[in-house]
């Protein structure tokens, strides 16, 4: 099918040009800018040598890891529950749970303020219960809540699909061999959805690493990398540092995704 090969090449050309012009070229430019700052190539290691940047990096990694863990834990419980049980209102519940799928980070930030801000629902609740005022929207905890809010629907969609696809015969087989509930969970169910856990975990992690809108909306002195890049960029127009940090952030995120894809097979990015 030579003629089809020719057509295929023709079809790939526009995509190729677009990506080259608007992705590869700008990225190369970014690399150049980062290296052309006053510190030259040292800018690239600044993330490790500048204690403030290093601390931010560590904080970002820790936060992302915590978000990933929490989202996966909650997501697994919910996904298994929804995949296993049929009850009236289930479809609605699924819809509600996956609805925030495309809320942008800014909206999510706003949701966190409404939930845990000074006048948030939690605050009113705790006040009326006489427990003092619960406000955590403007701290790392707020960002944590925001990222969980952001990632939970995505993780749920992936995990639910995986749980649905899990051959029920596998669990039945384990039970026929005498395995109890927890044993089935440990030996069959969790290993069965492990690729989905990997994939959606990677997405949650990557989003938490790079998302900016939520942090921007909460806009408090939260030390995460995305915020630092933004500050570096807007403060004194420190392009070189911002570019170097961006590249570092991109590289770390990409590496995590690539690693997860290695473990989980393809389809990792699709979950995002």
């Amino acid at each position, binding site marked *: 099918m030579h003629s089809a090969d020719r*057509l295929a090449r023709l079809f790939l050309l526009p995509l190729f040009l677009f990506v080259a012009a608007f992705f590869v070229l700008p990225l190369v430019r970014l690399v150049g800018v980062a290296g052309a700052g006053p510190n030259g190539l040292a800018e690239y290691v600044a993330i490790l040598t500048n204690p403030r940047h290093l601390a931010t990096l560590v904080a970002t990694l820790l936060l992302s890891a915590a978000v990933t863990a929490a989202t996966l834990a909650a997501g697994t419980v919910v996904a298994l529950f929804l995949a296993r049980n049929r009850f009236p209102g289930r479809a609605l519940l699924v819809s509600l749970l996956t609805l925030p799928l495309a809320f942008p980070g*800014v909206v999510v930030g706003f*949701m966190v303020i409404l939930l845990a801000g000074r006048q948030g629902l939690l605050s009113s609740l705790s006040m009326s219960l006489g427990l003092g005022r619960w406000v955590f929207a403007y701290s790392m905890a707020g960002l944590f809540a925001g990222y969980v809010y952001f990632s939970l629907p995505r993780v749920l969609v992936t995990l639910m699909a995986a749980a649905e696809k899990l051959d029920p015969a596998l669990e*039945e087989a384990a*039970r026929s061999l005498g395995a109890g509930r927890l044993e089935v969970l440990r030996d069959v169910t969790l290993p069965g959805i492990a690729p989905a856990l990997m994939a959606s975990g990677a997405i949650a992690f990557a989003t938490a690493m790079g998302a*900016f809108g939520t942090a921007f909306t909460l806009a408090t002195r939260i030390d995460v990398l995305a915020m630092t890049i933004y500050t570096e960029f807007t403060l004194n127009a420190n392009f070189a540092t911002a570019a170097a940090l*961006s590249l570092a952030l*991109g590289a770390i995120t990409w590496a995590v995704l690539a690693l997860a894809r290695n473990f989980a097979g393809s*389809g990792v990015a699709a979950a995002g």
Partner: protein
Amino acid sequence: MRSGLPPHRLTFAFQLLVTLLACAFLMVPAGASILAGFTVSYFRGPSSGLTLNWIGEVLNLYSGTIALSIAIALGTLGVTLLLGVPAAWALARRPSRLSRLVEEVVTLPVAIPGLALALALILAYGGFRDFRMSPLFILTGHVLYTLPFMLRAVMAVLAAVDVRTLEEGAASLGASPLQRFFHVVVPNARGGILAGALMVVTLSIGEFNLTWMLHTPLTKTLPVGLADSYASMRLEIASAYTLVFFVMIVPLLVALQVFGRATSGGTK
């Protein structure tokens, strides 16, 4: 034929509790925001009365951003369709090392934080004033960001329906490659194309990370306006604006879900 473990009361109760908590976590703030968009004073609560004034104010202040967001979303959709669908076919046709590489590069924008991407675009193209100032600049960023989703969605169906064999069938009947593409590939990838399209529009309308850096005062999109309003407007106006956003995006999301369920072969 599915049953898995029959309900076990404690497990069931625990799972139900977590599910409801998750649902509350996601939905209560959204509900509060909707309510706030209608209340006269959020500080005093709903007892202060309900009003449509805030919505009116939002439409008055920000209708430009809404229109622009819709226009950019549709433009993004058009470009991703033109670039993505043929390319998805070409990539899915013969999985080779080259096609894997192209796929990797094209999906990279998902992995790289929007902030970095936007920075790169500004540094590379910020100097072209007419381009910089037109909505096309934002559109470019959105295409970059949404293209992988279109590609993936289309490639997924192409793999699922074994378009390869269908094409061979058409070829055996005398159809040329282009005829095969339009008669067989596109119609049978419809599901993926539609799913991809919904995804692209949804993501484009909500895109903030890139847009925040890419926009100019003339090209403010809805999420940029939202961020503005969160920072500098009354909570009620911000809420009303969020409400407007919901009204636009929720139907898309519902369509996406209904559609996803219909194409994924059905959840029993």
